[in-house]
């Protein structure tokens, strides 16, 4: 049975993975989930006054991929960037402050939820224009190649971003130049409320198409953080080895509405059944259950991780709350770099 082979693979993966890696992945998963759900809860106080796209349900990808990257590697992301920012090690306090529009935010309140940055950990930015950061990642990869650095660039984007011309152009150039870049497509089946079938040919797989454009590609289960980690790790090693660009398409599902804190299965663009079937594939819970099953990490350690993160999250919201807003006198600052005003 295919199923049990997969399960066996999974188990052997789990067994052969070091405790520290497992713990780190788990920590990422739990942190993202906790942050996003806390945002969802607090959003209805209407104090986070910016469009906010939550990643709940999609944590496996950010956690698995970023676990395979080094701190110096570059990451870029989209409108739905909290998970990537956190998984790459971005400062939590600054992220929450940013969503609250505070001067202490990672973008000093100028960007909001869709425009996060933490250069200290290689998180080079996210923007809301679909596909907009894909070439930027290739540019960073080019800089790394030019400077003969070992850094690689990794860019996260959704299934809809693969419909933009700039995606195709970037894939082509990355292949021509053999750039050190990892493309991660999070296929969550929807673009806002639009299902895949009105946007892409029905029988075409994104990763196979990319293969045909010129980049070695695989698909994977994005809700399985460990599978994601191993697929990413293999590719990251190849990329760092100078083998050129790689692409992974990872299946997943967004739990909450496209933008905002609520659930929206009731409005009719997708079914409750579909949603429920994906909820069973909870990337956090399944990972946690497996960890418990194989007993490589004691329950106390897991509990400590949880307690620690919950505390961090509470503190982050406190930090954001207590931080001042940008001063209106600063409206004109930073139009140009090097400006003195």
């Amino acid at each position, binding site marked *: 049975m295919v199923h049990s082979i997969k399960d066996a693979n999974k188990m052997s993966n789990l067994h052969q993975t070091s405790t520290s890696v497992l713990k780190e992945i788990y920590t990422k998963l739990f942190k993202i989930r906790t942050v996003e759900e806390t945002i969802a809860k607090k959003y209805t106080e209407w104090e986070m006054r910016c469009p906010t796209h939550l990643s709940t349900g999609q944590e496996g990808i950010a956690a698995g991929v970023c676990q395979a990257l080094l701190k110096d590697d570059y990451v870029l992301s989209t409108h739905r960037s909290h998970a990537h920012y956190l998984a790459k090690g971005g400062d939590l306090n600054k992220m929450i402050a940013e969503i609250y*529009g*505070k001067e202490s935010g990672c973008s000093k309140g100028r960007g*909001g939820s869709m425009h996060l940055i933490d250069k200290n950990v290689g998180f080079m930015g996210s923007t*809301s224009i679909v596909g907009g950061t894909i070439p930027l990642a290739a540019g960073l990869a080019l800089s790394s190649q030019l400077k003969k650095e070992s850094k690689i660039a990794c860019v996260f984007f959704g299934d809809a971003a693969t*419909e933009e011309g700039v995606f195709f152009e970037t894939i082509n150039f990355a292949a021509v130049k053999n750039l050190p870049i990892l493309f991660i497509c999070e296929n969550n089946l929807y673009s806002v409320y639009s299902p895949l079938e009105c946007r892409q040919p029905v029988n075409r797989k994104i990763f196979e198409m990319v293969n045909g454009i010129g980049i070695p590609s695989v698909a994977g289960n994005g809700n399985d953080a460990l599978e994601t980690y191993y697929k990413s790790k293999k590719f990251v090693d190849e990329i760092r080895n100078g083998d050129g660009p790689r692409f992974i398409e990872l299946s997943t599902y967004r739990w909450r509405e496209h933008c905002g804190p609520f659930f929206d299965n009731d409005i009719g663009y997708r079914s409750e059944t579909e949603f429920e079937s994906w909820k069973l594939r909870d990337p956090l819970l399944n990972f946690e259950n497996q960890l418990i099953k194989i007993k490589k990490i004691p329950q106390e350690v897991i509990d400590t991780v949880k307690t620690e993160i919950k505390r961090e999250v509470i503190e982050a919201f406190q930090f954001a709350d207590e931080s001042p807003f940008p001063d209106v006198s600063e409206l004109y600052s930073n139009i140009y770099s090097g400006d003195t005003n």
Partner: protein
Amino acid sequence: MPRIINFAQAINEAFVQAMEIDKNVICYGLGVDDPKGVFGTTIGLQTKYGKERVFDIPASENAMTGIAIGASMAGIRPVMTHQRLDFSLLSLDQIINNAAKFHYMFGGQHKIPITIRMIVGRGWGQGPTHSQNLQALFAHIPGLKVVMPTTPYDAKGLLLSSIFDDNPVIFIEHRWLHNMEGDVPENDYRIEIGKSSQINEGNDITIVSMSYMTVEAIHAVEILKDHDINCDLIDLRSVKPIDWSSIHKSIKKTGRLLVLDTGVTEGSIAGEIIANVCENCWNDLKEQPHRICLPGTPTPTSYSLTKAYYKRSETIINTVSKMMNKDLDGYVLVDRKDLPHDVPGDWFKGPF
């Protein structure tokens, strides 16, 4: 008896009537058939007119614009919708290099009857990439028409005119207008593209305005009237072509000009209007013209910064009052009812 509906419903009604009149009218764009129907503007269209004429598209702005152009060459009248103007920047190649030029450069043999709706965001942290007011950019391109309706009445009449115009029309809707209500006749009527609307008559000063800024101007004009300042308020409706004769006529009467623009100052439509009026009505002007536009920065996201960024009726009152050598304080006179500055009304909550 007035028939009160809101701006979004007026857009929807124009769609319905256009699609009834001419089966060549089609409607597409990201999410036009989804449950939200682009803030209600496209609700029900797919049910009424089928999936062939009303459909969702891939996130491929440039090609989908070219596809509209191509279809229009064969007599189709596509209406394409961008939920934010910012997304249309991916398609400027097709808009500028093709749509705007095909009629002229093929010696008049092609008609390009396309309408491209672009919605401009404001407030609630829309920020740098969801609230750009780039009408000046389109208005600079020969061959395009650019309209920016303010009232539900004009929204309906202008959308019908745009759809049945044989040229590419950029149709810019301000997000803060969608819930504004007004009298909208049920019948098919058209607003001529290139004609402004006189919203208030007065002899003291000409205020030329557009889109959402006209709403702020209406408040200001009322308050100013209470203080014996009478404004000629002209709502442009079209920013390309501009209704120069109405503007010039008003300047002849008032001798004073204030232009309001939803875009940034430098290179604004407001600047073009000031330049044109100075060129053409020099001797009628009693003093230098003024404009109120956005500061020359990307839109900041933070609640605290947008307060200084956007200009409202308070500023209009202060500017006009200074021009008239009076001493009014808009911040005292305008009653904001404690509504936060970054929403147009109570109905606007959450991300958009």
